[in-house]
């Protein structure tokens, strides 16, 4: 027999003490005091451990109490009275403050005056003139080198007629002329095949803008009448700016993103 089992052996043989239950009850009642004394007096790591354990238990108890107190009938979520009372016809509407509207209009006016636009590609790799133009040698002895052929994609417009070939300085090959662009709307994320109305600005230089050369980063004007946009004044918008996002001479098509 194991040496510590004598208490159990006695209980088996003679039954429990007559005041066993009473003593158990009293010991349990004293447990609370003992636990509290220990928690207060324990020092060091042991004390920390006990405190952490107690805190965990407290949190759990609080959660169960809150869960029980939740009533079965659902109440409305928002019961507080807020500031800024509005009549019913304004409640579902977005209240832009007057100050914000005014500052927006002023900023818009300033931007238009400066000629700066908020474009998706603010900086593009500059294209050198050697890359842009190919020198064409002409003349009986092929010594004259004043003609240039544009090696990038260009837009010429529907009513374009070449200058007399003898006096033409810049040649825009028909194979590299495009009239349509694949324009993506940045918010709707859908792409439309829209006609180009004109080239607004080529970042590489004003000469390229006037020639109608379309490279990456060029701002072009596209015909958006099929999108069905309407201005606040009620007029139909039929032209919007878009910025080219690819290198059209490599891909064979012009991809652009609409500037809204």
């Amino acid at each position, binding site marked *: 027999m194991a040496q510590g089992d004598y208490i159990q052996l006695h209980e088996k043989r003679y039954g429990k003490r007559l005041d066993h239950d009473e003593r158990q009850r009293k010991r349990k009642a004293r447990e609370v005091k003992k636990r509290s004394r220990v928690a207060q007096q324990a020092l060091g790591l042991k004390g920390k451990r006990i405190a952490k354990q107690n805190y965990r238990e407290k949190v759990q108890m609080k959660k169960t109490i809150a869960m029980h107190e939740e009533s079965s009938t659902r109440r*409305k979520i928002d*019961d507080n*009275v807020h*500031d*800024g*009372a*509005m*009549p*019913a*016809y*304004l*409640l*579902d509407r977005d209240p832009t403050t007057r100050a914000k509207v005014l500052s927006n209009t002023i900023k818009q006016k300033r931007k238009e005056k400066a000629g700066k636009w908020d474009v998706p590609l603010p900086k593009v790799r500059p294209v050198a003139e050697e890359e842009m133009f190919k020198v064409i040698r002409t003349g009986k002895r092929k010594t004259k080198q004043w003609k240039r052929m544009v090696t990038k994609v260009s837009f010429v417009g529907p009513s374009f007629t070449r200058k007399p070939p003898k006096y033409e300085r810049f040649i825009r090959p028909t194979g590299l002329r495009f009239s349509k662009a694949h324009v993506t709307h940045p918010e709707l994320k859908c792409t439309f095949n829209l006609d180009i109305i004109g080239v607004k600005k080529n970042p590489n230089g004003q000469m390229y803008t006037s020639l109608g050369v379309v490279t990456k980063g060029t701002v072009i004007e596209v015909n958006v009448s099929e999108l069905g946009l309407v201005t*606040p*004044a*009620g007029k139909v918008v039929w032209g919007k700016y878009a910025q080219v996002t690819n290198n059209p001479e490599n891909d064979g098509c012009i991809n652009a993103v609409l500037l809204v």
Partner: protein
Amino acid sequence: MAVEEGASTSSGNTVMCLLTNPEGEPLGAPLYLPQNVGPPQLQEIVNKLLNNDEKLPYAFYISDQELVVQLESYLAQKKVSVEKVLRIVYQPQAVFRIRPVNRCSATIAGHTEAVLSVSFSPDGKHLASGSGDTTVRLWDLNTQTPLFTCTGHKNWVLFIAWSPDGKHLVSGSKSGELLLWDPQTGKQLGGPLTGHKKWITAISWEPVHLQAPSRRFVSASKDGDARIWDTSLKKCVISLTGHTLAVTCVKWGGDGHIYTGSQDCTIKVWETTQGKLIRELKGHGHWVNSLALSTEYVLRTGAYDHTGKTFSSPEEMKEAALARYKKMRGNAPERLVSGSDDFTMFLWEPALSKHHKARLTGHQQLVNHVYFSPDGQWLASASFDKSVKLWNGITGTFIATFRGHVGPVYQISWSADSRLLLSGSKDSTLKVWDIRTHKLKEDLPGHADEVFSVDWSPDGEKVASGGKDRVLKLWMN
């Protein structure tokens, strides 16, 4: 006719005229009238042809433009051919004339938050206002001071409505509950009427000619249903569900149907005994913001009119209201106009068909409030594009635009004689417009902030306006 014969001997030129009423029916046969005939003589002719006992005032319109000069000058101006029959439309005008308000007689403070709605009682003797500070206040019009403060709501009071017999006031709040008040004592009648889960957008009482004393009213809420409540039972009797989005406006028509307009772009017509859907009016492309009935003013004022008569028993009131309603309506069916966020309005005759009669375009921003004139001849619409437009109330043709506001126009109100129109806007001014000249009559600045709600008393004496600056302003002549 004696008038005709006497005049024809003096002037040589005559012109053939046909007098028609606003619906287009001719009054008698075409007459040869001398060209120096003007509106006063035409008025006598019409009075005689209609066999009126008392001389009623009329206004005359040739192709939607008012005739103010003699026929001679009109013909010379417009170069109208004398050979064709000239159609002159006569419109009865109100016998009384309301003077335009031009001064603020009192600025009454009291509310501690923005005033969201103001309303005069149907007899014009009481004034109530609901505000964002969760109280409804009743104001004394004789001394222009506060009378009662009615507390009880838990959140902003968004809408108040007087019963057409003037005995009850109901207010709806942002927490979806409705409270009944007794205007004589300022005390709440019974407990709050709950049932709606979101805020109340509109309330409309049952017309008094259908039931007197007024017992039932319908309330519309953001949760998408409209509920019919009974004030004596103090509970919701019928719930009109069907809209998928918020119901923005509700009107109880004179023929007993309820019209609800909603953010799901449809208008539904309901019958009131069982709450069944009769018709659905589709057509708008965006939220329906506001509804207006051609008989709305008569339904709102019930049996009271400009004579200021009081009634002793509900039966008397019911009869008087019924007589007024019948006279207002005539033989034509009730017309309904809906204003929407898609910048247009539709004119419907909901009793006849579910297709619109006319589409009223022209506004450049959403239409916030549409209102028929008390005589049903005109329709005014207030829009966020800073203009108020005037339309013909019967055909829906455009007549004039009133420009002058510099901010979105929120609400409009008519004077009881239909000659003046009042508009309140976000730019903190109120403007009174003259319908005859199509011009601005009075400019009423004075509010410190946006004007949310305006109302013209049915007796025409006072105008009340409330807004974001928390004061109630009373305007008088």
